[in-house]
């Protein structure tokens, strides 16, 4: 089971800023270990953020994104207390979903 994400969402005016910190090794699949063997790829491929069931962000990540990725984005049309849900799916089919209320 993957480690939890840290999600913070804050409303300012009519704009909500969401900041997400994901816990993931993000192994690109091109690195070699001490014995010269290739370390298999293991990275987040898809990220989707939804608010009240409506998709507000879809992203495709690749192995070039750093370990423990940080993602920040803004959107309009949400109210305080609405739940932001973020889900990622990685190259091994593993996934993790977390949510946070907009403050």
């Amino acid at each position, binding site marked *: 089971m993957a*480690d939890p994400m840290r999600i913070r969402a804050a409303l300012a005016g009519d704009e909500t800023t969401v900041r997400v910190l994901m816990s993931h090794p993000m192994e690109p699949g091109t690195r070699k270990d001490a014995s010269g063997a290739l370390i298999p790829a293991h990275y987040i491929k898809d990220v989707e953020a939804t608010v009240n069931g409506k998709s507000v962000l879809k992203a495709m990540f690749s192995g070039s994104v750093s*370990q423990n990725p940080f993602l920040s984005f803004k959107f309009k049309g949400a109210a305080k207390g609405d739940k932001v849900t973020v889900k990622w799916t990685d190259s091994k089919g593993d996934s993790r979903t977390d949510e946070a209320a907009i403050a």
Partner: protein
Amino acid sequence: MNQPMAIRHVLLAAALTATVGAVQAQGNAALDGIAKYREMLQDGNPAELFEMKGEELWKQKRGPKNASLEQCDLGKGPGVIAGAFTEMPRYFKDTGKVMDLETRLIHCMVTLQGFDEAALYKAAPSIGKGEGANLVAITTYVATQSKGMRFNLPYNTEQEKTMYEVGKRLFFQRGGPHDFACSTCHGTEGGRIRLQDLPNLTKNPGDGIGFAAWPAYRVSNSQMWTMQKRLNDCYRQQRFPEPKFGSDATIALGVYMGVNAKGAESIVPAIKR
């Protein structure tokens, strides 16, 4: 003959001033750039992931005794963690030893949870896996609960005073193939290695600098480093034999730096390049 010489002197002096000025301006621009980069990183500091994991481990019932760490006494009474970190290393009556946060946490994992002490010390240097990674997370969690507080080690027992003196001697002890000491880099003002500022650790280097900036997340290798790891790597860089995890030498250096940093604000968890 005399006049042209004098003119040449003046010109030379002017040229020197201009060169020095340019070097300084360049230095400041570079440092400002780094400060801005750090500020940007601070917003999404992955240290928070370690903190979250540490909080879970602190409260979770684990080990042969199936107990949590919530009754761990870090010097301010069982279970008190706010402000504990900024008063460590300190002397503990129950063990008769001066301990830093990490060795004290191991002590609690042994006494409260029933883990094997030797196994924990063996696992501790491997910060990326198993109990070593768990200890880093718990250390980050506990240290973070003192964020914004100022270092104020008790420093009132014979044992702590001895440790301070030992730490001071170690700090200035030169050795290794490069004839280095901690003081070679950290004993003067305004030094740097490439673009890294070197804090003067023989005094309070300021808020959130030096001793007050660890544990920290290092962006370059995606690792969370505690003070034990920081000291170990300092010795490796000096080409000294690496000190054992939690050894008296590392704790003595911690007391020396911690007492010197009195009044410095802890910014833990920090983020480094």
